[in-house]
């Protein structure tokens, strides 16, 4: 009962029709096969396709190679007598092709209104997508990665009530603020050249900062804060930042003196894990809404981390959800450390910021 037999048995009985693809090429195909496509069927009924001059012009999306595939599909399914299992086996084999071709085929089948083939190929495409990470999907289909990390988070934020996403959004908010701030500072810089110098100084202090010079760092920072506040005062339009600095003044002493008074057990343990963090660093990140002065190195670090964080958020969804859930249960922040052997500071920002969240 193979197709070959059919072809031998009734070659003369077959009638042919003419089809023209968008590239202009015209070919002759068995009418009964082509009629399997509703779009072609309609044209034939309307009297088209009977001769080369009246070839049925196919939609743009059907190129000759794909038309060949579609006709193969029709040729098999138009023959009665195949069992469901045979049809299924044929279909399974038929859709074994690269994703590019599969997309073209889907599109072409759609334009020919060949619904069973559209269903088959959509199912195949869905199977390709299912269970893959966004990166893998992008790679498979050559999708441009043209969303900002923040945009990527937005739907996640809406869909899941993930404390880490809240944290990230706060970090982003701070980043935005920081950028604005920088813009403003730039304007100031035109008048005050020293500003830039100081930030370089800060940068140097920061780089050398890890080795217990917390006092020096702190004083440096507070100096910077004072200067910055002056800047804000100069820049009288910025009420919000002024308020923030007032708040900062109100809030900073406990952090400087002893964070134990405020620390929850988990926070304490976290801090013990990370004894080398200078308190000033902690101060910087303890309350995201308040502090808005970051030096560029830290900012860079932060950006990198935020991006990395976002990437992880997108990539390991199930494990991450598991983490979040266990996080929600036990209120433990240990799982936040993202890679075991990563730089210490790497771990600390979210931990500190999260403990801030926890307090909220």
């Amino acid at each position, binding site marked *: 009962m193979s197709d070959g037999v059919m072809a031998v048995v009734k070659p003369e009985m077959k009638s042919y029709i003419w089809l023209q693809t968008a590239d202009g090429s015209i070919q002759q195909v068995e009418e009964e096969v082509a009629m399997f496509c509703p779009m072609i069927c309609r044209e034939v009924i309307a009297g088209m396709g009977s001769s080369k001059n009246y070839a049925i012009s196919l939609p743009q999306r059907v190129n000759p190679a794909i038309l060949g595939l579609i006709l193969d599909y029709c040729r098999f399914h138009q023959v009665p007598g195949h069992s469901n299992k045979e049809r299924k086996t044929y279909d399974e084999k038929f859709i074994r092709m690269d994703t*590019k071709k599969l997309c073209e085929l889907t599109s072409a089948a759609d334009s020919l209104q060949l619904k069973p083939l559209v269903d088959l190929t*959509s199912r195949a*495409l869905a199977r390709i997508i299912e269970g893959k990470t*966004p990166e893998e999907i992008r790679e498979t289909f*050559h999708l441009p990665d043209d969303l900002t990390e923040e945009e*990527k988070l937005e*739907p*996640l934020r809406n*869909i899941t009530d993930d404390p880490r996403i809240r944290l990230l959004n706060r970090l982003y908010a701070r980043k935005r603020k920081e950028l604005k701030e920088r813009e403003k500072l730039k304007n100031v810089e035109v008048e005050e050249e020293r500003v830039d110098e100081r930030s370089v100084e800060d940068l140097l202090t920061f780089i050398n900062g890890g080795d217990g010079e917390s006092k020096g760092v702190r004083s440096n920072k507070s100096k910077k804060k004072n200067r910055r506040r002056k800047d804000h005062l100069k820049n009288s339009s910025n009420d919000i930042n002024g308020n923030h600095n007032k708040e900062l003044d109100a809030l900073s002493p406990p952090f400087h003196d002893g964070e134990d008074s405020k620390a929850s057990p988990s926070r304490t343990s976290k801090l013990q894990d990370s004894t080398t963090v200078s308190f000033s660093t902690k101060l910087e990140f303890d309350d995201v809404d308040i502090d808005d002065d970051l030096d560029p190195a830290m900012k860079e670090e932060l950006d990198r981390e935020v991006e990395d964080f976002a990437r992880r958020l997108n990539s390991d969804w199930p494990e991450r959800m598991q983490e*979040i859930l266990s996080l929600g249960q036990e209120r433990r922040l240990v799982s936040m450390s993202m890679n075991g052997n990563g730089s210490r500071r790497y771990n600390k920002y979210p931990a500190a910021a999260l403990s801030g969240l926890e307090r909220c």
Partner: protein
Amino acid sequence: MGDALDQDLVSDLPQSIIESILTRLPIRDAVRTSILSSKWRYKWASITQLVFDEKCVTLCNDRDLVEKSLIDFITRALFLHKGPIHKFQLSTTYLQCCPDIDQWILFLSRNDIKELVLELGEGEWFRVPACLFYCKRLTRLDLFRCELDPPLTFKGFLCLKSLTLHQVLVAPDVIESLISGCPLLENLSISYFDSLALNIKAPNLKFLFLEGEFKDISLENTPLLVAMSVAMYMTEDIAEHFEQSSSCNFVKFLGGVPRLERLIGHIYFTKYLSIGYDLGNLLITYNYLKVIELNQVSFEDMKEIYVVLRLIMSSPNLGELQISGSSNALVALEAPDLDLWEKQSLLNCTFEKLKLVKMTDMSGVPHEMEFVKFLLSRSPVLETMSIAPCVYVMDGRLNMLIELVRFRRASPRGEIVFIQE
């Protein structure tokens, strides 16, 4: 053409195809496509079929947490969604009665909902909100573990084609008027009802599935019924009710289904049909009936044997017959009325189309063996008669075989397959 390898072809597929792809994904994967690229941002948001289950969230031992994240997920997904929602399915044991479901249904009722499936957990049953009854375009309604109490003004779902009520708390008169209030109903499935007396009037009904302790079922107006599967349980109460019943259940149940193609009965179905059975003339011929499956037929009860005989002898196109026995071997060995099998009406009939017979749980009692003998001798095109003895019958197997090989077969091609284990 550009570098063909790097072309993003999938994003430019028509939205209808994208939707058909996304609809085939678990909703969690579908929602995640919004972070693929700017083109994919809102593509998922207009899919018209939303199917939620606990796979939407990560499971853990904390039920409350799972419940909360599931509710959050669904609420937010609905908020992000745009356009009509034709199908909404919620299948999870994590949710029971919670006010959020009411809100979702209200939301759905304003978004052109056509298919609604609510499969909820045990515990406190969800009371279906009144707004559901104003979803005029519903074509499919599946409710599991819900409480149904339509408002007084409710007249029916004019477009409903499929109704499933599984463990649903509803008054019998309400269920009756609900069924008759859906003139297009084709598919009816009712399960886990206790002592329900039901009069089904559904002129377009094609498929019927019943399971439960039914007291009295009458198919009053179901002329188009094509297939039915019925599982009847029996309690003392119902058995007593049956004893006193004077009406003929066979006629009430199968008297008005001339187009039946497939009949499947479980547990006490055959017994139920035998209640009030009279040996009057056959009123109906099942010209379309091709498959009969009757489980737990008691071959010690002459009335049940009559039911089986009447059914198969009124089905000239029967192709496949499956019967499982439930004889109490001790009683049935005595087997009176064996002369039944010599009756002229039986000797005159032939099963012209019967190809496959499966007898399972056979205990080899006289009436069973006579029944097999009868089928073998009256089925000229029979291909397979498979016989599987009941697990408790050990000693009798050889005797069964000896008896079987002696039976005359009307079909030259017919084979007997004796299945052990």
